[in-house]
């Protein structure tokens, strides 16, 4: 889809214009590049928030449960006896023992952490890379699209890898 920009210059707004159309209107190159980069940063935000939404549980209660379980799985020796009893009940219901369930929880938590941290890293890298594009470059939009495509592809691969484990019942 063609990216349209709205920029203010010399007391006027030019609205809904492509970068080329802004150039035709006499908008200085540095103003155009600022608008293009700003839109690029917005696109990064949309990308990473979409990724995060795919990972997040839609239930606040379920999310809290994941956190409790991860805490227990990380250090079961310090967990309350009553909480371990609940872990045992779930393990029994699923036909496995406590250690197997805790190992599964740790694996899922690890997968979630890795992909969540990766998205944070991709966000920072993409924004820094957009910022670093020289204002004088004629192909800023193309460079941003390349950056976004690379970030999207990397995030997609990681999410698919992690989702199988993360979306399990524990």
């Amino acid at each position, binding site marked *: 889809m063609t990216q349209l920009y709205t920029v203010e210059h010399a007391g006027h707004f030019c*609205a809904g214009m492509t970068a080329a159309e802004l150039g035709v209107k006499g908008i200085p190159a540095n103003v155009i590049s600022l608008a293009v980069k700003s839109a690029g940063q917005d696109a990064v935000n949309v990308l990473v928030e979409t990724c995060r939404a795919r990972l997040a549980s839609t239930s606040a209660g379920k999310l809290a449960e994941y956190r409790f379980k991860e805490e227990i799985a990380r250090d079961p020796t310090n967990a309350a006896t009553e909480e371990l009893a609940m872990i045992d009940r779930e393990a029994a219901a699923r036909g496995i023992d406590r250690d197997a369930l805790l190992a599964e929880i740790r694996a899922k938590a690890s997968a979630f952490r890795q992909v969540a941290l990766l998205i944070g890293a991709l966000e920072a890298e993409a924004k820094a890379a957009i910022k670093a594009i020289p204002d004088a470059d004629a192909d800023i939009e193309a460079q941003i699209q390349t950056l976004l495509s690379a970030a999207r592809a990397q995030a997609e691969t990681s999410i698919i890898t992690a989702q199988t484990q993360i979306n399990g019942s524990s």
Partner: protein
Amino acid sequence: MTDIQDIADATSAMNQLAEAYNGKIVSIDDRVDGIIGNLNSALSGSFHINAATGNDANDGSENAPFQTVGEALERCVSGGNYELHLHTDVVYDQLRIVRAAGLTIRSNITGTKRRFTIAQERADAPGSTRLPSLQGSGGGLNVYFLDIIMDLPKAAAHVTGPYFLHGSTFTNVFFRDSEITRQADADTSLLSGFFGVFAISLRDSSYPATMGGHWLLGIAAGTDPSTVPYLLTRNIATL
């Protein structure tokens, strides 16, 4: 008569009946298509306006244009879609109810902008407290400006709360390849409405920073469009 002959006769009769039926269906389809075509023709059309050589007694065709936009608006049928082609710059100095559901006000030459100046007061009702304006008639209204320079005025002293377009239940305004300009000390807002929902979008169009506070009557300059629940905007950073 044998049974076989009876069956053959019955089959032949049935085939004849089916043929007659199919013929009727084709005939009915043709008539319905004709009626729909007539309706479409009645509910859509183009009017031409030439402020220099036109005449409101004309039929508004390209060869016999109207002189005023107001006359073209009067000829629009309720619920229809119309294109008003401006052959010259125009000064709009009337108040008209827009019965059309879709209205395109455009230059007759793509890429050549026509100035659409809104007068400071009404010529059709001197002394009126209302500005020359378009008034939605109650249904949905789409107004599309193409290759137009819309010039918003400072209203005459006796005009109160000046605005150009009074919204309907749903009012969609789209500027394409157009400009909005404002006369010195202009106080006219583009839109107004006591109820209903508005959408404003711009494509390859420009407006002065002084439009702030004049997009929608009563909405202060600098307002984030997303905070106005009855307004959708595209490509307008602040109202």
